[in-house]
């Protein structure tokens, strides 16, 4: 069955709620205290903060996995820091064994060296390639399929036509997962070398608080040019704010905002996409619940084979804020001015 809803989770107590909302799969991180004592909070084991975005004990992880398995749902564990040099890799391999022993159904990994090491160490858990790798093309997906990964999570900034092309060219080799809801990135996550540590926050949103100036190329910029650059930068800051989804607000229909690919679900179904990621391990439980429930409402209609125009209309109307949707400000998969691909 394709188009499985992959939901974020960070505590066993969220499980019942997310199952009720319609999650098909779960992904999470688990950062035990020993990691923090050894490496401090500045060295992130995975792509979310050790505190607030992860389970904090292996006991909780076992409870979560047991509960999910009892409901017939798999749980995937993130080990998706951009890199693990030898010093951290040894600790990561120990944790991977602990996750395996707890019953993890897959490991989400970004670092090709870690993929090699997991295989060499005989840690026989399927590997899902994190979007942080990032696999931007069918050729890149094939590279990781050659390494034995079972699923590739495609990066956020691929256009629909590109996703369809990758799916067509790699069919049968690996499963593909795409982003569906919440939390965008201003840049490509897999080629961003910044930290999101709470002491500084994300650079993209923090730039609004920086001073700035524009310098011309070999000449002074005109007042009109500077004004145009200022407007453009101001719009970009607004775009970045929308990527965060304004977690303090709900739509008129009581649903969360944020980057959204709901109206692309028919296209994902045509492409044969296997799984749909809902982002936000660190989000408030209610936001996770509402996100999964909203996605499930549209996805069930896709599965029932409803006509595409009606599905798209339903997706665009579900938040009760058609103007925001029509503006494209939260749209994760715009066709783009040129459409298509080379």
């Amino acid at each position, binding site marked *: 069955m394709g188009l499985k809803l992959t939901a974020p989770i960070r505590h066993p107590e969220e499980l019942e709620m997310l199952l009720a909302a319609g999650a098909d799969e779960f992904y999470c991180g688990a950062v035990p205290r020993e990691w923090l004592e*050894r*490496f401090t909070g*500045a060295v992130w084991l995975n792509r979310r903060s050790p505190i607030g975005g992860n389970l904090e004990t292996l006991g909780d992880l076992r409870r979560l996995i047991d509960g999910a398995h009892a409901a017939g749902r798999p749980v995937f564990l993130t080990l998706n820091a951009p*890199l*693990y*040099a030898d010093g*951290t890799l040894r600790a990561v391999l120990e944790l991977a064994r602990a996750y395996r022993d707890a019953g993890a159904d897959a490991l989400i990994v970004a*670092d*090709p*060296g*870690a993929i*090699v*090491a997991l295989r060499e160490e005989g840690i026989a858990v399927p590997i899902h390639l994190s979007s942080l*790798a*990032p696999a931007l*093309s*069918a*050729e*890149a997906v*094939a*590279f990781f399929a*050659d*390494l034995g990964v079972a699923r590739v999570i495609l990066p956020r*900034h*691929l256009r629909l*036509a*590109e996703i369809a*092309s990758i799916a067509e060219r790699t069919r049968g080799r690996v499963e593909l997962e795409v982003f569906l809801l919440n939390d965008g*990135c*201003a*840049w490509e996550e897999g*080629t*961003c*070398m*910044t*930290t999101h540590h709470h*002491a*500084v926050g994300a*650079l993209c949103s*923090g*730039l609004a608080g*920086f*001073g*700035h*100036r*524009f*310098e*011309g*190329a070999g000449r002074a910029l005109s007042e009109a*040019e500077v004004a145009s*650059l200022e407007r*453009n*930068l101001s*719009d970009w800051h607004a775009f970045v704010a929308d990527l965060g989804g304004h977690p303090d607000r709900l739509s008129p229909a009581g649903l969360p905002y944020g980057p959204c690919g709901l109206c692309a679900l028919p296209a994902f179904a045509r492409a044969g996409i296997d799984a749909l990621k809902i982002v936000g391990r660190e989000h408030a439980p209610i936001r996770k619940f509402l996100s999964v429930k909203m996605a499930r409402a549209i996805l069930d209609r896709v599965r029932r084979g409803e006509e595409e125009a009606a599905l798209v209309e339903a997706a665009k109307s579900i938040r009760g804020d058609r103007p925001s949707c029509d*503006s494209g*400000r939260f*749209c994760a998969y715009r066709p*783009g*001015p040129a459409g298509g691909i*080379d």
Partner: protein
Amino acid sequence: MVALALYLPRPEKVEPRSLASFARHESERRALERLDAMVAEFLPGAKAGRFYFGNEFCAHLLPTPEQAVAARVVAEEAGCAFTFCAPPMAEGEFGRLAPILRALAGGGACEVVFQDWGTLRLLRREFPSLLPVLGRLLNKGLRDPRVTPRYAEAVPPGEARAALRADAAGSTPLLALLQANGVGRIESDPLPQGGGLRGRPGFPLSVTLPFGVVTTGRICLAAALRDDRKDRFEPVSRCGRECQSHLTVFEAPAAAGFAPIPLFEKGNTYFFPQPEGTLRAAFEAAASGEFDRLVLQAGLPQWA
């Protein structure tokens, strides 16, 4: 002695001149002047034995096959070896790369710096005569000049500090994977918190100065200048080289306690000028044989 390479902005004959003379923006010029001074101090009279050409960050700034070949001819006429730089190649743009590689594969020895794993696979499968080099976007490491320079003081020596100073090339399994795929060299940025300056056994290291890369992606701030749509921030499918007209310089607020290092936005990519202390550390590491090639950028990325 460390070898020098010159990262050319255009396929043109280069007479001996300062790096700063290539600059088009004032802040860029100041960074290049610092580098010129450092080269004069540590490597007086040294000449580049290799030219780099291409673009590491943006598929829309890829040269044509003819421009790539012309750049190699310029290198050969100057008695220099040649390295071509490719950016991360997404599915929509991937088809633009093979014609360039095909043109280069028809000539003499040529390195190709790759920034994504699909490009490496293409190189291995279709262009085995070209020598793959791991690019600095894949030799990952923390490069966040807001905060990472502070790590040297804030994080005590030990495993944590070592982890923060690590780059991807510090992974033995990754090196084995690179070796199995015929990768012959690794590119590096010096890390603001220390690190990124040491080659690994079997893998000579190139260190690029003076602009470190912070982040990049397919959504280009400059390309959004071309229209007023609210939803214009999207993976770029059309490009009018808007990034070439200006540079945006961001300066961190002092009150936030950030390190006083500016950020340069050039199109889809953000850079930082390596501070003088890091430049000096790089030249000292070169002098002591920690790595074998210095890549001197003649400015921020330009359209050929």
